[in-house]
């Protein structure tokens, strides 16, 4: 207990005060200004308990446990998120920080908050809907991405109807909100490999019907980012079944061939990384083979002129040379051989790409270079 200054309130008292202020704010009567102030004040107190500040260290585990327990008992996570729009600017950010801290809480290998949210999935769905409101979209985004780190929560999100709202959110006209939604969307589709691939397999039709819209979006950023993500998804070996299905559909091939010729060089380049999978497939279905054969000469001609200035990108040039060779050697479909042959495509060729697929996310640890 400090000798001077205010004596500290106990977590129970602060959480109680927060709950009362929040109820007043929810009611939205004349006193709502005062209520808003009280909410922010108590949020700050709780934040400082959890994180500490420049004057104090964060509190012991016992205090953190008490705060968390009080939050569960009062269903406070949910009411904070429901009323997020009414909380002031700094308070909104504090909600996100408090939420993320309580979420990360661990007892041994257990994550009690994750277990708690599993029983209250409405918390997750309310967060998703947060993307509809400009003022809280980014705060909800930061909480959602923290949730997506936990497999159990990611699974609930993926399997909810609300997940398909993301196809709309990633395309909204405000750039920062769309980008934030895209990061969350990507996190959900890539973080937990097993549940992601299960989700994609089980919902293949619906997901790719929606995904098609993103690839044809009028918004350049949406198009570029979703095409890049598509490449990453297909080349992830966990998604082998999904990939096989995707590269068997001639419409997808046509789309990629058209995207190879888009005005944007970045889109051409990303499309290349999807297109290569169609060509590398050792067991091409007849419709795919037919398209490639019909365009055999054009493709060879096109690819040999494709992004020739990328002479330093060795991997790209190797892959391009490989594709040209494959296309040159294409032979018309022999129906008898495939009937007797194995029906599962050999992943060997395709996987040569997936292991070395350039990952831009890993560049953050560059050494310093003085120039």
């Amino acid at each position, binding site marked *: 207990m400090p000798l001077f200054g205010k004596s500290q309130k106990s977590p129970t008292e602060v959480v109680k005060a927060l709950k009362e202020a929040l109820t007043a704010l929810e009611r939205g009567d004349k006193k709502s200004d005062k209520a808003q102030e009280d909410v922010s004040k108590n949020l700050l107190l709780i934040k400082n308990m959890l994180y500490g500040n420049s004057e104090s260290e964060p509190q012991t585990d016992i205090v953190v446990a008490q705060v968390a327990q009080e939050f569960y008992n009062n269903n406070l996570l949910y009411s904070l998120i429901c009323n997020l729009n009414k909380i002031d600017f700094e308070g909104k950010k504090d909600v996100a920080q408090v939420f993320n801290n309580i979420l990360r809480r661990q007892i041994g290998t257990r994550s009690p908050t994750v277990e708690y949210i599993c029983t209250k999935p409405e918390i997750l769905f309310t967060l998703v809907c947060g993307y509809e409101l400009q003022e809280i979209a980014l705060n909800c985004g930061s909480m959602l991405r923290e949730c997506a780190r936990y497999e159990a929560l990611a699974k609930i999100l993926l399997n909810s109807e609300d997940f398909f709202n993301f196809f709309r959110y990633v395309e909204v*006209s405000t750039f920062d909100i769309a980008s934030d939604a895209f990061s969350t969307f990507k996190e959900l589709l890539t973080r937990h490999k097993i549940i992601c691939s299960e989700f994609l397999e089980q919902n293949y039709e619906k997901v790719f019907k929606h995904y098609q819209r993103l690839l044809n979006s009028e918004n350049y*950023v949406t198009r570029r980012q979703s095409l890049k993500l598509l490449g990453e998804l297909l080349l992830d070996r966990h998604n082998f079944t999904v990939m096989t299905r995707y590269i068997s559909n001639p419409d997808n091939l046509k789309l990629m061939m058209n995207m190879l010729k888009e005005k944007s060089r970045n889109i051409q380049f990303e499309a290349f990384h999807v297109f290569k999978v169609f060509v590398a497939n050792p067991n091409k279905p007849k419709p795919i083979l037919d398209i490639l054969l019909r365009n055999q000469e054009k493709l060879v001609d096109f690819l040999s002129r494709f992004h020739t200035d990328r002479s330093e990108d060795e991997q790209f040039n190797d892959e391009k040379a490989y594709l040209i060779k494959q296309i040159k050697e294409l032979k018309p479909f022999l129906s008898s051989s495939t009937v007797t042959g194995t029906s599962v495509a050999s992943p060997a060729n395709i996987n040569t790409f997936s292991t070395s697929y350039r990952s831009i996310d890993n560049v953050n640890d560059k050494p310093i270079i003085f120039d």
Partner: protein
Amino acid sequence: MLYETSSKYYVTCSVMNNCFFDKGKVLLARHKTSRTLVAIKHFNLEEFTQEQYDLIMEEIFFMRQLKHPNILPCLTSYVINFDLYVVSPLMGFTSCHDLISAHFQDGLSEIIISFFLRDVLRALDYIHSKGYIHRSVKARHILVHADGHACLSGFRYMYSLPKCGSLNKVHHFPLHTSHNLNWFSPELLEQNIEGYDEKSDIYSVGVTACELANGIVPFADTSTTSMLTEKVRGVIPQLIDCTTWFLHDDDQYSKDEICYSNENIENENQKIISRKFSNSFHAFVELCCCRNISIRPLPKQLLNHSFFKPIRRIGINLQELLQPAVPYTETNTTELHEDVAVINDLSYDFDDINIYPEEWDF
């Protein structure tokens, strides 16, 4: 006020500046709905690598999370074709860097600097209290409103301090910052096990103070390696005036230059040699650039420094002091009757559009 996400709602007036390694443009525009002037940063994303794209995105996110009278806000951002537009309020006097290169090659006057740095320190106090380090305080990132108040910008290098009590140190070296090295603190440059914290920004404030006063950033003509060793040795950047001139053996103002035949340069130098900055200004810089981090104060403490006392005198008119610089305002801005997009069409490089002419045969 709602700022729309379409170029229809903004009328371009002129191109003010370049930004982001000259890959972006800053446009002066009028927001039609509110009839106010705004600054719109325009980037052609097609020319950007994924890393650069991420940097810009990061900057917008940070701007969206900060709200303070001395921090440049982002009003909205939107994409049209390949272009990203980021709308901010107009800062009529543009950046301190621009002010210096246009009108104050020898540096700004002390009183102006104290106003600007007070605003910067207020912004830093807020940023630090939210758990961030700015890492890019420099004249280029101090923008001045037509009414004279300054705003901090340049948030793409900002970094979160780990949130765990009072012992906060980070080790991360900012990416793509070769052009910021002169402003970095020795502890940041050193990259040792002890790391650095928000006081690194205070060192940059000290360097920026010299930059504003001298008209040129300290170590400008020093090689990167010797800049690093000097900083680590504890050499403190200095304000150049009659008290420090002869201590100064910098290449920039070397004694040979005084004997240089060009009369202009001699006159310029004469002006610099004869001026005198106050003792508290010298002390302020020394304190900011103190090698010992425990002595270096936090923004709140620095705001009480005697350097800021003259600000309290009433009747100081910053706009007058900044003459001959004239801010962009309602009265001197004329509209070009074009959408924001129209001007930008000129900037497209059509030469690399060599779309394969043949149609695929499906």
